[in-house]
């Protein structure tokens, strides 16, 4: 018996169960690109700022971090940096970490560490800015 002409790449069973694209298949990939675009100017600003003011005293550093413009840019840099870092390290672990439980555990650990580092950095900026 000849099977009917297939017009979709989804399997008949998958269609019956209603599984398939959740319309978010490229979300992780896309967010890596979006965060990288946003990080481009922010990172260059941060590197240039620090490179041209090396050896700041504690008061100078605290004043620089607490300056309203710098504080806002730093908060954006912190959030985007750790979003991008977590998703990048996730892909590396997905490729190389084996067996499966090591993969899942290490990805969760990376996400937890990135979230905590981002919170700590953001709190530090806010303490100096507010």
């Amino acid at each position, binding site marked *: 018996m000849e099977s009917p002409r297939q017009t979709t790449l989804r399997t008949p069973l998958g269609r019956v169960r209603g599984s398939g694209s959740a319309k978010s298949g490229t979300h992780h990939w896309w967010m890596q*690109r979006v965060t*990288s*675009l946003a990080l*481009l100017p922010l*990172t*260059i600003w*941060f*590197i*240039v700022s*620090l*490179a*041209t*003011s*090396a*050896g700041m005293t*504690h008061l100078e*550093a*605290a004043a620089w*971090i607490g300056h309203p413009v710098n504080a806002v840019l*730093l908060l954006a840099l*912190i959030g985007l*940096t*750790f979003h991008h*870092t977590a998703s*990048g*390290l996730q892909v*590396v672990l997905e490729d190389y970490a*084996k*067996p*499966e439980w090591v993969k899942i555990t290490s990805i969760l650990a990376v996400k937890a560490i990135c979230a905590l*580092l981002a919170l*700590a*950095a953001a*709190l*530090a*900026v806010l*303490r*100096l800015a507010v």
Partner: protein
Amino acid sequence: MSSTQDANDATMLGRRTDGTQVRRPLSPHLQVYDMMQMTSALSITHRATGIAWSFGAALMVWWLVAAASGPAAFGWVQWFLGSFIGILVLMGVTAAAWFHTLAGVRHLFWDAGYGYDIQTTYKSGRAVLIGTAVLTALTWLALLISW
């Protein structure tokens, strides 16, 4: 052939025309593929510098938290960053950051559909390497002048 332990192995298992199972190589095939071409070497370096920069980001957190904690904590960071090992680490992070930034821009061009032909790939690869060297040197020049 024994049963597979890992789901990824399923993609490596094939059958010969006589029906016997055979383990097929995955791409890139490590035995015949020269991993030290500029294309693959830069690809691996992009990952490595991304991982290295993660530690640089942790340094940034230490610096910020120390600045918020007070002069004593800040003194420790400044001492470490100014030490021999600290400067070595910072130089590594600077180079990794510039490489990852420039190679990242190269990736964004690829994502947009440009620069896929071999000549352009090698040209942009060389540009990333030269750019990394120049920008790292300029960053440290600025750093040493302002120190």
